[in-house]
């Protein structure tokens, strides 16, 4: 999923988000948290809880579902 100019990697599969097809990834992300940082492609530390998720990149900080 591409969120902005700095988001160059798909946060589901980690591949270059500006090329290739990520339609499956976008669809899957409705029922999955992100796994890769969209800015640097590091695998993030992800915590899923019953009501949400957090995903932390060592370099770019934490994203959360809410």
């Amino acid at each position, binding site marked *: 999923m591409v969120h902005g100019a700095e988001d160059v990697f798909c946060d589901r599969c980690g591949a270059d988000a500006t090329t290739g097809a990520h339609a499956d990834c976008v669809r899957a992300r409705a029922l999955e948290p992100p796994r890769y940082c969209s800015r640097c492609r590091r695998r993030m530390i992800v915590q899923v809880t019953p009501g*949400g998720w957090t995903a932390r990149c060592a370099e770019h900080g934490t994203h959360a579902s809410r």
Partner: protein
Amino acid sequence: MTQILDVARTQVLGRGIGFDEAQAARALGLPDAELDALLDLAHDVRLKWCGDEVEVEGIVSLKTGGCPEDCHFCSQSGLFDSPVRSAWLDVPSLVRAARETAATGATEFCIVAAVRGPDERLMQQVREGVAAIAAEVDINVACSLGMLTQAQVDELAAIGVHRYNHNLETARSYFPDVVSTHSYEERLDTCEMVRKAGMELCCGGILGMGETVAQRAEFAAQLAALAPDEVPLNFLNPRPGTPFGDQQPMSATDALRAVATFRLVMPRTILRFAGGREITLGDLAERGVRGGVNAVIVGNYLTTLGRPASEDLSMLADLKMPIKALAKDL
């Protein structure tokens, strides 16, 4: 072909005697045209032998990823090229998750760890977590921490864990195609210890992993032989990087046929919709709750997301199925 439904009506609905393996295989072989009749009958069986209540549960991953085992469906094995990284949940976050779960009306909160079995660090975290939840949240606590020693079984029972989950995952004859790092017998051993220690046993597995229909019937019969208090049914959600990552999710009709059949095999058990129902069944999950299922996991799963708890709760309200209330009878 309708014959097997007549047998179900007298034997299972009438007398509460579950189907055996051969009968289960016949039910699983019913054509699509008879699926509605099968589901209706399974629903009647559930209402007669379990009642109309639905048990609602939330689950949370205390320790995620990095597991040394190789269950081929699992994104938390450290042996596969999965994007899931190791993570630990701290006790305050665990208590928060329990509180959020209780706020949905759920009566069960299951603490899960991706391990072969608990080490001392995990046991310590569980001790602290269970005590903190007991002090602050009105909810039953269950655990799923892999294979246990007798001392660990005894301790979990003593600290008030009322139910323990340990799945057989699949039929004995298919298990070697799914897991190579431990045996079916090792799984059975933990289940037996849990039962003997007086905890409720929760034991189920995952359908749609490439097992044959005959193996699905075999699995149902093997679960029934254990007489678990609860059977969670998952449907394979193929995870990237795992050996089963390229499999196709099972069809909705096959999933519903399995749900109804498992109910006919185990008329009195708590039969729970667990992971994978969103991709396998979508809105047809509602048919499963009118087809033998009497328990759901609400909210997110361990590494994947579910639909919001509010959607499941309004589905149950529409179906006029009351949510089971908390009975602190332990």
